[in-house]
């Protein structure tokens, strides 16, 4: 979505380029190239926001290959998934296991695996509180399910009955409706034993300005930056005292989702916050 909307400063969508948009998808292999060694026609496979990387650089030789400077972004450097057939290199194609429907596998290719990496890198432990501002949306709700599966206790801050119902049915322990609750931050702090969350997973960029406050007085809290805001908007004011309290503060922009924001490698929009790897 963000490519065509062109509202992320680090990348510009070239409307004259003949590339179809959209980044992720799931389907069935209908044809293989003559040099393909392992994939077979009929296998189910997924297509990710990065279609390929160089495979040879220092980053590609580690688990940071999504930072490869020569990465081919789906929907930007090659056609995206808004078409019936796409071409995907064998090395970078993900096979979909039996029992996982295309409807579930498609979003995993980006949003769910993104937030999964973010949860892992947050170093939150089972029993810790994780706040998901905008958690009723596409990326956040994947995080809620994964957090619950990892033993982490999700609190969703969002609005509306639909999102409340969805969040509570998929693993959220609490839902704080920011339109009904006078002070959502105070509510979250109350819910977390009067202290504050251990981690805040920001998928909705509008939540950045308030993201730190959900940590309350929690020492060693973590804000994970997942959704990238439009250029110059929704910044985080990071007081030094806060950094001192959060000695192990780490924030990571993951490869963000089908809401799709793609920072350039090394892109860092927030002072004091280091952007980590993307998937």
């Amino acid at each position, binding site marked *: *979505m963000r490519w065509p*909307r062109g509202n992320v400063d680090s990348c510009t969508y070239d409307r004259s380029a003949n590339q179809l948009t959209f980044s992720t998808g799931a389907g069935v292999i209908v044809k293989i190239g003559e040099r393909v060694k392992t994939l077979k026609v009929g296998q189910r496979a*997924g297509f*990710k926001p990065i279609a390929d990387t160089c495979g040879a650089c220092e980053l590609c030789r580690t*688990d940071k*290959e999504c930072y490869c400077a020569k990465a081919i972004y789906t929907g930007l450097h090659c056609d995206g998934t*808004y*078409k*019936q057939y796409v071409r995907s290199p064998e090395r*970078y194609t*993900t096979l*979909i*296991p039996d*029992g*996982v429907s295309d*409807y*579930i*596998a*498609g*979003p*995993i*290719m980006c*949003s*769910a*695996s993104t937030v*999964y*990496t973010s949860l*892992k890198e947050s170093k939150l432990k089972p029993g810790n509180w994780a706040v998901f501002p905008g958690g*009723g*949306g*596409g990326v956040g*709700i*994947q995080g809620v*399910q*994964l957090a*619950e*599966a990892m033993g982490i206790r999700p609190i969703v801050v969002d609005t*509306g009955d*639909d*999102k409340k*119902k*969805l969040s509570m049915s*998929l693993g959220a322990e609490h839902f704080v409706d920011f339109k009904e609750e006078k002070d959502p931050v105070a509510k979250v702090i109350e819910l977390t034993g009067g202290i504050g969350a251990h981690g805040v997973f920001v998928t909705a960029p509008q939540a950045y300005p308030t993201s730190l406050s959900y940590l309350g007085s929690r020492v060693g809290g973590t804000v994970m930056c997942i959704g990238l805001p439009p250029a110059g908007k929704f910044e985080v004011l990071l007081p030094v005292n806060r950094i001192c309290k959060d000695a192990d503060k780490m924030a990571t922009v993951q490869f963000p989702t*089908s*809401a799709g924001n793609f920072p350039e490698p090394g892109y860092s929009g927030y002072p004091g916050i280091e952007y980590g790897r993307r*998937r």
Partner: protein
Amino acid sequence: MADVDETLQFAVRGKLRLQPNVVGLSKFNEACQDLKNGKVAGRMVVDFNKE
């Protein structure tokens, strides 16, 4: 790559169980507008094999 495979395993075990809103091609534009306006709870999937 590895994290995508790990995430898929959560789905195999039924831990990722969100049923997305599925639309056919004819509803493509509306779906994009709804997403843009924050009206979608959860995920939206466009099925290219549906009208």
